[in-house]
């Protein structure tokens, strides 16, 4: 058994690999400067604030400050009824609303006794995977901006717009859908959705390749990301990392496989982990690669599910939705794989009221970001920006 004090710093030190990390020789005495980064700063992805103690270009320590977007999700969840929580869930991770709704509905449906129609499961998976691609596109695009390349960002947003159009056609909203409801979805797919979706898949494959060429195969991009922000797998697990961040550290862990929820066990897709040929396992480049590969996998999932989806005429996706949602007393922790990692909901119900007694959102970004302090030790300011970008935070989910 490890001693408490030691456990904290036993495996902290990041071992530099390759020649990409700078070694700073400190023989000139210099003064430290406190540099405040954010809440309004182009590279903090919203309103994160970092208080950096710097020595020249070197960040000695960066302390994140959160809460600039604390919108009291958990209070609202206790105040409104179960279906009313869904819009607030939307607004938590606003880049992947479908996935967030999915996670929340999984948690509530565990407590409720409802049979979900098979077609609904397919609809849910398809829209979630579309949203996953859209979210990764934003992540990759903004990461490119952080590293100084502006054009890939616009390419990403151009392609994302196609997904938003598809989802808007289905749900009626561009970003915050309120589409996946407890026990069903709001509407069936519109007529001709399958063709348009397949058309998008066909359109997007070469575009993803183009993006790879612009970024991943770019020498400067690799130089800026390879070997930066190293995180060994055991420390990553101890930090509670999940999603692309954990997979970037080489852990083959995907809730779609592990929890096997919805129809994912029937689908053929692989868990993307970097193979270490192109990047050092656990660095910023690995995380970027995982996201890039996951877009491909999502396309595969979409294609398969569109093929396998049962066709039903006059299908009512709201049929299974209970009239009055009042789960039996109990506690549940339900979770799903979000683009940023594991989004879990701890819900406590007393069996009497129609609103949860307690609803805690376990946000993936919040947990992933908590390693920021350790990752930033002794990095340069440009590397700090690179690391924040690779964590891919959405402040709405961090602060909730």
């Amino acid at each position, binding site marked *: 058994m490890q001693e408490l004090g030691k456990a904290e710093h036993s495996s902290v030190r990041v071992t530099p690999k390759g020649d990409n990390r*700078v070694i700073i020789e400190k023989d000139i005495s210099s003064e430290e*400067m406190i*540099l*405040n980064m954010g809440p309004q*700063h*182009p*590279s903090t992805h919203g309103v994160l604030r970092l208080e950096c103690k710097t020595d020249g*270009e070197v960040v000695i320590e960066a302390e994140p400050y959160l809460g600039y977007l604390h919108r009291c999700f958990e209070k609202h969840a206790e105040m409104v009824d179960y279906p009313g929580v869904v819009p607030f869930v939307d607004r938590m991770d606003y880049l992947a609303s479908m996935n967030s709704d999915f996670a929340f509905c999984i948690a509530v449906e565990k407590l409720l006794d409802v049979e979900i129609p098979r077609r609904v499961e397919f609809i849910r998976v398809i829209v979630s995977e579309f949203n996953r691609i859209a979210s990764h596109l934003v992540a990759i695009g903004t990461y*490119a*901006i*952080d*590293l*100084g*390349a*502006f*054009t890939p960002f*616009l*390419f990403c947003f*151009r392609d994302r717009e196609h997904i938003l159009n598809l989802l808007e056609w289905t749900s009626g909203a561009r970003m915050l859908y309120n589409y996946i409801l407890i026990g069903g979805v709001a509407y069936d797919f519109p007529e001709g959705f399958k063709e348009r979706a397949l058309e998008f898949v066909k359109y997007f494959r070469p575009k993803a390749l183009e993006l790879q060429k*612009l*970024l991943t195969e*770019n020498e*400067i*991009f690799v*130089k*800026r990301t390879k070997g930066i922000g190293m995180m060994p797998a055991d420390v990553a697990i101890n930090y509670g990392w999940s999603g692309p961040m954990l997979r970037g550290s080489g852990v083959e862990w995907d809730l779609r496989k592990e929890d096997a929820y919805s129809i994912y066990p029937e689908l053929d897709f692989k868990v993307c982990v970097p193979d270490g040929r192109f990047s050092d396992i656990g660095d910023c480049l690995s995380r970027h690669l995982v996201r890039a590969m996951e877009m491909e996998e999502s396309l595969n999932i979409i294609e398969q599910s569109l093929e396998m989806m049962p066709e039903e005429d006059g299908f009512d996706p709201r049929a299974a939705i209970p009239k009055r949602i009042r789960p039996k007393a109990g506690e549940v922790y339900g979770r799903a794989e979000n683009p940023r990692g594991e989004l879990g909901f701890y819900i406590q119900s007393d069996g009497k009221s129609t609103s949860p007694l307690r609803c805690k959102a376990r946000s993936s970004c919040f947990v992933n970001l908590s390693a920021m302090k350790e990752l930033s030790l002794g990095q*340069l*300011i*440009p*590397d700090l*920006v690179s690391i924040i970008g690779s964590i891919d935070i959405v402040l709405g989910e961090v602060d909730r």
Partner: protein
Amino acid sequence: MSTGALLPNSFPLVMSTNLNAWSDALSELHLFGMPFGLIIIAAIPLVFIALYALTYGVYGERKISAFMQDRLGPMEVGKWGILQTLADILKLLQKEDIVNKSADKFLFVIGPGILFVGAFLAFAVLPFGPAFIGADLNVGLFYAIGIVALEVVGILAAGWGSNNKWALYGAIRSVAQIVSYEIPAAIAILCGAMMAGTLSMQQFNLLQQGEYGFLHFFLFQNPIAWLPFIIYFIASLAETNRAPFDIPEAESELVAGYFTEYTGMKFAVIFLAEYGSMFMVSAIISIVFLGGWNSPLPNIGPLSLNDWTTGPVWGAFWIVMKGFFFIFVQMWLRWTLPRLRVDQLMHLCWKVLTPFAFVAFVLIAVWEIYVK
């Protein structure tokens, strides 16, 4: 061809193609006892910078970047948005001029001034065609390199005077970068000077003149010249703070770099200076390696393209076009590549470009002595 041979009785302003005929004639023009011609000579580069920055520099950059990014760029302000930069400048004129309470007021105000003067003074030795040059110094090239380096002082003054941490970071980075890259740039230019055997800007052009057009350019005369050419181009990107070396104003890291605190007209002046020096380095590279105002077209039998496209006005056309071409390449790189890190930038400068520049220097010397 002789230099500076003036025919006093002809109409040099209209038809003479003699070297520096227009500028020499202008410099002797006096009105009401004032050296009116000199003022015009001084005003021409100024007007040129302003016009070029307004049209090609800012508007062109916005359009080019937009087309690269699947967009349209400015469209609504005037036809195809051509009045966009004019509106920007007029607006910046109207903005409140903020000087921080905690700023060093003298440095804060003088910073943009030095920047602009530095960028502008270099144009004195820039030959706008065979018939016009501000000052045909015999050390013109040396002067141009030296005066562009004056910008460093302006940037440091602006960054330090702002009393803003981001501006300070930007200024320090910029100074380190520009001072370092002066070395490979200067050595690469020296290679050109060795090939020419002169430092006068006009002489460079004359030496690359000939009926076979581009074949007379130093770049095609000497196979080794490609090496200093590429080194100088990379170094010039760093000297003008363009991507992938735009770390002094790295938007995602340093907000806006050394001009974070500048508002209104001061900001516009900094921008103008930046575009001015962008053109200057592009002009230097085209003069030293690509024949300056000489037409690149060769005479092919009866088609004497070279003769047809040579003359004072054609000269101005060619040098501006060559400059614009390099600016286009700069923009192209800027909108494609990510940004390097500070230490990688220095690594590139000291461990790659500088040794290669020395190698090029020696090789060119050997070529000039033994091969040519």
